[in-house]
């Protein structure tokens, strides 16, 4: 019996350890500075994607600078699944008291309610700011027979439904970019849907795909093996000075992936102002910009108002486009 007690203690120790591990990621910082009315307690930071992912890494960099400005820390919560939809609705449904901030991605928050009956809408949020803008890129294998976007389009026109284009997920940034491109270039392709950038890149390198539509950020790592034919940004990208934009090629293809932060509709305007100001300060800190660059995050700051305007615009465009191709009513 004595022995079993000892092992009960052991078991409890293991359990406690388990709990500790679960909460370990949350960190904790006590600070009694309550001069300001908000925030008076740690703020939940809801992430719709996994810990260690690109969104998470970005938010963690931000947190470093947030901690310098605000005495209350962020407590990270990961609510993942369904391409982010689970987390996004979690953010929308939280109490609008300023203590649940969330990271959102566009076009995900625009497309999921249209295409998949997600349980939130873009009107559920107040937008704090945009921090990242990752354009999409039309990419081929370095050894591809295609040397330019024009050649790809010519092939696709001559062989409708034969050009194998890889995209990541449906109702995603790369899906939208492909739809826009097909619409603008007047072509029809075979879309092949991959789960993530990793298997999409592998498929392009392995020769399974003719071209792919992917995040510039994911392509950058493999530039010695891939050629970027066109990008969806408004202007040429610093790292790819040779690569034309779709716009230059005469096509209005602008789909990209943007990340920003939001709180719930109904949050006290003063809190919103505080958050917008603080995030602006962080986003403009040269050290922060340097950190972001180091982590390969394509930084582009937009104020809350501008970000909201962009989301609304994106929504209108997506509605029109999806209706046109028959994916939405």
């Amino acid at each position: 019996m004595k022995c079993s007690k000892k092992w009960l203690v052991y078991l409890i120790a293991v359990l406690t350890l388990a709990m500790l591990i679960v909460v370990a990621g949350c960190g904790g910082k006590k600070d009694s500075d309550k001069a300001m009315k908000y925030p008076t307690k740690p703020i939940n930071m809801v992430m719709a994607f996994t810990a260690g992912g690109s969104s998470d890494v970005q938010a963690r960099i931000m947190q470093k600078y947030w901690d310098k400005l605000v005495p209350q820390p962020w407590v990270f919560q990961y609510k993942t699944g369904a391409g982010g939809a689970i987390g996004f609705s979690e953010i929308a449904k939280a109490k609008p008291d300023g203590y649940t901030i969330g990271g959102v991605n566009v076009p995900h928050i625009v497309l999921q309610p249209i295409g998949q009956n997600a349980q939130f809408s873009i009107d559920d949020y107040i937008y704090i700011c945009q921090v990242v803008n990752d354009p999409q890129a039309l990419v081929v294998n370095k050894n591809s027979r295609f040397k330019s976007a024009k050649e790809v389009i010519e092939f696709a026109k001559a062989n409708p439904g034969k050009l194998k284009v890889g995209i990541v997920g449906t109702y995603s940034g790369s899906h939208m970019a492909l739809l826009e491109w097909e619409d603008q270039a007047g072509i029809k392709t075979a879309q092949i849907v991959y789960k993530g950038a990793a298997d999409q890149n592998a498929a392009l390198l392995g020769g399974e795909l003719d071209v792919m539509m992917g995040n510039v950020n994911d392509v950058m790592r493999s530039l010695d093996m891939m050629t970027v034919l066109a990008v969806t940004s408004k202007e040429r990208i610093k790292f790819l000075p040779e690569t034309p934009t779709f716009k230059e090629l005469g096509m209005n293809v602008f789909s990209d992936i943007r990340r920003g932060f939001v709180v719930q509709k109904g949050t006290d305007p003063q809190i919103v102002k505080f958050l917008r100001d603080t995030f602006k300060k962080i986003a403009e800190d040269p050290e922060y910009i340097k950190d972001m660059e180091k982590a390969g995050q394509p930084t582009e700051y937009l104020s809350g108002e501008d970000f909201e305007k962009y989301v609304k615009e994106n929504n209108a465009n997506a509605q029109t486009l999806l209706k046109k191709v028959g994916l939405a009513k």
Partner: protein
Amino acid sequence: MWEHILAGFLETMQPFNLFLAIAGLVGGIVIGALPGLTATMGVALMVPVTFAMDATSGLIMLGAIYSGAIYGGSNSAILINTPGTPSSVATTFDGWPMCKKGKADEALIGSLTASCIGGFIGTLFLLFVAAPMAKLALKFGAPEFFWLCIFGLSTIAAMSVNNVAKGLVSGALGLLVSTIGLDLALGVPRFTFGYYPLVGGIEVIPAMIGLFSFSQVIYLVASKQKFIADYNPSPGALSRVLRKFWTSCKVNLLRSSLIGTVVGILPGAGGEIASIISYNETKRWDKDPSRFGTGVIEGVAASESANNAVIGGALAPMLTLGIPGSAVAAVIMGGLLAHGIQPGFKIFESSGNLAYTFIVSLLVVNVLMFFIGLFLIKGTARVLNVPAAYIGVGIVALSVIGSYAIRNSMLDVAIMVIFGLIGHFGGRIGLDTGTMALGIILGPIIEENLSKSMSIAGAEGSVFSVFFTHPISLVLIIFTVFSVSAPALIAKWRLKSNAQGGGQNG
């Protein structure tokens, strides 16, 4: 290269790095042993911590956690029939029967030794042939993946020799479960019955915790057993295991490590598939396949050496192509990028010191793991001395925490309980939890690659040429056909040769 390796070794031996490796191993083993806390989670939680260190030390720690967690999963697989990580599902097939026979110590030491050997071999491959390995990853397209998983699924035939029909039904149920949620190609919700949270699908881990652990608790509670298994630690277990490995498991360990490495290279296929395939192959090539499942150390060795060998494989395309071969490798890559290190073929030149030190540290970690593991086993095996009532409470608590922790969602806890009930009551009518788990694990990968292959076939205009003309696919198809028919054929042949009085193969 050799000077890089030597420098890497010296760097690993720095007291601070050595400390990180040991701490990472212990932490990893504990995380791995707790059902629901997976290697991915453990590594992901520690990535931000590495921001505070230099990149090399951070990588050493992450590698140690990864190795420890994959090994750790076998502890609970053996002791409480609950795979601590999905990679250890196949370890339960023989580990748990060994435990029930009172040979828990041999099973634990066997799994530890096999893990270290597998991890070491996988890392050697990574060290010397990383670039060719990465190129192999690129040869694997959607049809190849499809056939690989069908091959994995053919394990059902071997797993349920006595009742293939029930095995097939269980596997099919697993596949069916795996279709719940958003369809990948069209983005349409399926089988959610209008209940929105289900669009995320059934998470594999809560389902498996339910099928294996929670159902086990119900059984435990109903059985009035005082202890979950007898534990007769016998002195000399270590030397017995080592001798056995040396005399009769060499081929098994090598083959399983090789399978693990190759499967590890492939993005989207990890330890869970590698261990199942290795287990199946070891069983097939054994002189007496029928002993498998009754508690033979070869089964444990196959599964555990394979899943640790996956680590070396999974890191190869990550380091050389920037394409991670597993979820954990993806997280580690996130850490690398955050340190401003770009993976790619050039990594061995541009960040040679770092890359080699990381790889060499994994070799050191696998050696360290043997001794740390031996030390920890002394404690973990004593779980069997705890009365079943306490163990039951402990498993329930861990099951709930583990299921919740995957997505921080109560839905997953409910899924865990439901699958626990399915596992328990289904088990009474012959439902095979092992094959059902196989269906749940392999289902999404099969479907994803089937749909990709069909899209490609649509573009190329021929289903036949996409599915049946790629060389790797053909090899996998032949394997599959062989795998499905072999158990029956071999049984028939044995019967015949026994009847003729041959019998020496029996």
